[in-house]
């Protein structure tokens, strides 16, 4: 069974956000966001704190629902679909702050990642993510809460991969990591993409994100203010000023 067979409109990109407005109570966090991600891409979403990056990811994965506008995934409107159902439909989300299960072992965290999968497919998948992240193999039986920040981040990504997402949402995978680890995480993100997973990457570390992404969106107070190929966004003067630390 391939995803392509189920797609009613092959012409439409994998993910389409159409005039998405999301609220936290009275706070209007997303104010008409338009965004697309095509199959096979790495798209990055950059912007300052509070711009709405995490809200965008949560609206896609179903943790939040838009009040107006639609989220379409593989042609179907998923605006009102619950998060736990969207995992089965092929959206994986490694959330902000890692959110690993601290009182479960690394193995149990990964098993949770495979919650929607059939039992026989799990061992090869475990092997696959442990090959991507050899540290996790060494720490199989250690409790998630006792891992270092970098290891927790690896676990969060690996756990999301266990559900075989066609679209992987990554929320600040580099946050709080040493420069060497940041490099490592980004090269693994690229590797995951090359193995066939589409990626939507939220980052504060704009330079790194832009260097591996195909396209980029710049978000500011709940609106997309700039979009284009990553290279072009990187050379945009306002972006260089605001996010790449140049003046």
């Amino acid at each position, binding site marked *: 069974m391939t995803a392509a067979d189920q797609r009613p409109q092959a012409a439409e990109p994998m993910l389409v956000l159409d005039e998405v407005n999301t609220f936290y109570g009275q706070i209007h966090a997303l104010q008409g966001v338009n965004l697309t991600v095509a199959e096979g891409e790495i798209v990055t979403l950059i912007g300052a704190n509070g711009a709405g990056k995490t809200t965008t990811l949560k609206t896609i994965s179903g943790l939040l629902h838009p009040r107006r506008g639609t989220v379409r995934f593989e042609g179907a409107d998923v605006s009102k679909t619950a998060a736990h159902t969207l995992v089965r439909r092929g959206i994986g989300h490694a959330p902000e702050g890692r959110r690993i299960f*601290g009182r*479960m072992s690394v193995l149990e965290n990964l098993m949770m990642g495979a919650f929607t999968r059939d039992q026989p497919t799990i061992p090869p998948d475990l092997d696959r993510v442990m090959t991507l992240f050899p540290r996790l193999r060494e720490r199989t039986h250690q409790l998630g809460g006792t891992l270092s920040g970098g290891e927790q981040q690896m676990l969060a990504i690996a756990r999301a991969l266990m559900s075989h997402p066609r679209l992987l949402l990554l929320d600040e995978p580099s946050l709080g990591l040493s420069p060497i680890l940041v490099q490592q995480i980004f090269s693994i993100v690229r590797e995951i993409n090359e193995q066939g997973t589409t990626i939507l990457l939220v980052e504060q570390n704009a330079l790194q994100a832009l260097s591996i992404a195909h396209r980029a969106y710049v978000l500011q107070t709940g609106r997309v203010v700039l979009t284009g190929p990553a290279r072009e966004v990187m050379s945009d003067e306002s972006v260089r000023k605001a996010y790449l630390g140049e003046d």
Partner: protein
Amino acid sequence: MTAIASPAAHPNPLARGLRMTAIAVAAVIAYLVVLWMALSLFGGRTIDAAFPEALQQTVNALSIGAIYALIALGYTMVYGIIELINFAHGDIFMLGAFLSVVFIGGITGNNEAVTNIPLLIILILGALILTMPIIGLLNAGIERAVYRPLRKAPRLAPLITAVGVSFILQNVALTIAGSGDRRAPQIFPLDWQISVGGAEISILSIFIFVLAMVLMLGLQAFVTRTRLGRAMRATAQDQEAAALMGVDANQTISLTFLIGGMLAAAAGLVWGLRFGYVRFDLGFNSGLKAFTAAVLGGIGNITGAVIGGFIIGFIENFAAALGYARWQEFLIFVILTLVLIFRPTGILGQHSGDRA
């Protein structure tokens, strides 16, 4: 968030199990010795006469502690998953006790002990198999109908609703069964005893303890080794992250109430066998003690609830054995207060906020 914590996959579960068993056995022996000494020093017995009595009492303490532990699990699991102190849980236990009286009484038609062992086993197991799912489903149904609509309400709302549900359940029992004691058929022969060193050990007490241990080990295996059990622990630790794994929180919460209700029903059944009566307000007293056990052990923690249940059983038994039965509750709550002053999270409770 407090979580349903339980020993996670350990590289060597057998070693861990053996260590825990050793600690438990040591604790029981320590209690036996303390009670023996207390009986001979303050109970006016000679040291020789005090030992068999201490041994008998220790076994009784284990059986009453097992009942509290079974009830405490329902409090702790529900708290672990939705942070609700389910005040109606004691009344679920009470209804379990009533329902098993109805089943056993309905089948046997009298209150006599059944000495035919296979028949006795069939009766007790049959009553368990009928009562546990019914009470479990009732508990899950109450959650669905009453607590779920209040899931996003301020925390006081479901809490006070639980108090309301408690009153409703008590009054249902009061209306149907009346305000007095109703006899529970003591089909398990009370005169079955084994003599050990001059002590007459009640086989019923041993049976209750063993049954509770089987149920608790079953629960332990469920939460640590099965897919749904893991989902339950994950939901307790971080509901949103669990949803991102594909876990339906509603389903998991229903399952938690179902299991909690089933364990309470089992406790209700053995309560009737042991004490020979049931009453509409049974859930209040025992429920409060079981709740205390859950808090003492560290609310949200499965192992803690079991430990807390046995501690309450021991305290109660200690007071009764020395002739201060009226001081049981006083002693229980003094110890609870002391534990909470010096260790507010309970014996095994973790501090919240361990989210990475």
